[in-house]
């Protein structure tokens, strides 16, 4: 146990963890939105994220992106990457809903059936990319070179870390406002609370469900862009582990609860980095799952509880 290292650079490890956790949080929002409304684990969401990373890469290579572009070009690439990633992920998420889940919902199938269908879909998506793009790691151009922006004590915060955390917070806030303040958001909350009553009140349930899949997909696309900027690589199976972690984060915070997803994601990122620092990186998954089990033992519905529907009801 390397306590010297952890406490000697506690600030640095915390910042690293928060940046890592922000990406978990954005992907976790997708799980939480769907779960909050449909009470269903959308296992295929991890592949929605994977498709996003490849779309970002595709957009960049189409525009001829290279390492270290100038500031103007960088902005162009960032915006284009965001648009490309979000569109691809959003479209994938909606397609998953239309092709598979819709029919199952019509049959009122039990959750297990949804789960297996989602697993099948994830396999299809990741294998399709594995066949198309090869099974090796694919490097991406470094659009935004890392620089230390400012230093507090011995903690340096880099531009990409700041961007990741701020972007996650902003999107989280925007989503929260959308769900809680707009007409569409009210529809989402209504369906989450009681689908049948919502239908009787004139809420188009089908459209609400499409909307949440779309939102989850867009956020996964944004996460894919941040991931591409920070880590600069992707692979056909990149979604599996990240999706698992994001789902863990969602459960940790209280699945169905938007703020819980953010809290869970950040917490999980920090726990992982601390654990990897104390021991070595190959223990971080164990730490993540142990924290999950311990939290669930004391708070069986996650840290903040399940509450998409009940928020400001």
């Amino acid at each position, binding site marked *: 146990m390397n306590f010297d290292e952890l406490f000697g650079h506690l600030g640095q490890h915390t910042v690293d963890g928060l940046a890592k956790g922000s990406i978990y949080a954005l992907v976790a929002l997708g799980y939480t939105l769907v779960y909050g409304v449909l009470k269903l684990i959308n296992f295929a969401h991890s592949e929605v994220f994977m498709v996003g990373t490849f779309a970002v890469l595709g957009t960049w290579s189409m525009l001829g992106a290279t390492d270290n572009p100038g500031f103007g070009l960088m902005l162009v690439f960032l915006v284009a990457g965001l648009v490309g990633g979000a569109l691809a992920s959003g479209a994938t998420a909606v397609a998953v809903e239309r092709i598979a889940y819709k029919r199952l919902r019509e049959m009122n199938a039990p959750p297990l*059936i949804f789960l297996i269908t989602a697993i*099948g879909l994830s396999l299809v998506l990741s294998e399709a990319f594995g066949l198309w793009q090869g099974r090796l790691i694919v490097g991406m151009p470094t659009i935004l070179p890392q620089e230390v922006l400012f230093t507090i004590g011995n903690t340096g915060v880099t531009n990409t870390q700041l961007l990741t955390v701020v972007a996650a917070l902003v999107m989280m806030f925007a989503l929260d406002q959308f769900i809680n303040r707009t007409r569409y958001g009210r529809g989402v909350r209504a369906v989450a609370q009681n689908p049948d009553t919502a239908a009787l009140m004139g809420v188009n349930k089908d459209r609400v469900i499409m909307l949440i899949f779309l939102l989850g997909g867009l956020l996964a696309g944004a996460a894919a862009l941040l991931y591409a900027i920070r880590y600069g690589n992707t692979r056909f199976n990149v979604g*599996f582990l990240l999706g698992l972690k994001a789902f863990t984060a969602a459960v940790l915070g209280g699945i169905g609860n938007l703020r819980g997803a953010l809290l869970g994601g950040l917490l999980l990122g920090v726990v992982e980095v601390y654990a990897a620092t104390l021991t070595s990186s190959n223990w971080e998954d164990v730490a993540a799952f142990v924290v999950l089990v311990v939290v669930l033992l004391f708070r069986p519905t996650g840290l903040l509880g399940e509450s998409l529907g009940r928020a400001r009801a």
Partner: protein
Amino acid sequence: MTEVTRNNPLDRIRDLTGGVGSRFRALPKWQRYAAFLAFVVFLYYLPLLGIPGLVWLRTDSIDGGNNWAGVLFTCAIYVLIAIGLNVVIGLAGLLDLGYVGFFAVGAYSVALFGSRQSPVVAALQNRFNLSEDWAVTWAVCIPIALAIAMISGVLLGWPTLRLRGDYLAIVTLGFGEIIRIVVRNSPSWSGGPSGVAAIPGPQGAPSPDNTVFGLIDVKPWYWLALTVVLLVVFGVRRLENSRVGRAWLAVREDEDAAAVMGVYPFKFKLWAFAIGAALGGLSGFLFASRGGFIEPEQFNAQLSILFVAMVVVGGSGNMAGVALGAFLLAYLPERFRDFNEWRFLVFGLALVLVMLLRPQGLIPSRRRARELKDRQEEVAPGV
């Protein structure tokens, strides 16, 4: 809505196959036993399969090779797993995504106690001044593996079974991963990433001199596994129709109602977990003995998910169904090895199609199918 689905050709096939099932059940008892007996005999004959027309079922990818028995062995192991997991998912209604953990526990029990190359055996030799050839005998490893698997099932179940369905799923998934990672990261007692070799079989450590349960011919191993499967099928069937089985059913359908009627849900859920774990451990035990070598990466989360898929595709709750599911999911990827790169894509597509067209599974449990139909009719208007 019901009108529409009735005209669906798939539903007509479904009715037809359902008809076969009820017609079979209508036969006199002795005929049913005879049919079952014939089927068992056929299963034992299967590795020698040479009936013209059925030969294309074999999976030997090269001329003189015999991969068929090896594939059948894998199928038998998976069937055993599916039956064990069916106790947890199908009978008790608990979604366990970490079943591979118990499989790994069983496999590592025989590896760590039975193999002369394992760190645990080496430590025991040192501690008790035993000879270098000493290791726990294979037969003694069976109760050890069962006990350790069962204990780990209880240890996992005790804190987690109070959680609701989806939480249980992710916690068990985490448990499976924890087992794999801890084993991989702890070379001092588990052999670490290089795994453990020289795992014994019924005839002791693997060696060219083993005449029956040898390294090359897999047929005897298949027959052994098949025998175990049949014994377990018999045992689980008895269990299903016992007081415990009825308690599981009650807990699955309505936990609160069951509790009111004096069936303590937690106790029976824990039983289901422990029995499921023991069966998972048993299959891991057989798998490791046959392979002679295991390494932690074999026991990954994808395998866990495959196990759940076997149960659900086959027909959760029905033993014949889950056995068929396990057989198909183990067999088809091997049979179509030529499509190597495409196998998993097709596998994924097949999963989706089966779930969309036949959500109750290939051979559904009658009770489960009725539940599903009830749900279907409950669908709210306007959906």
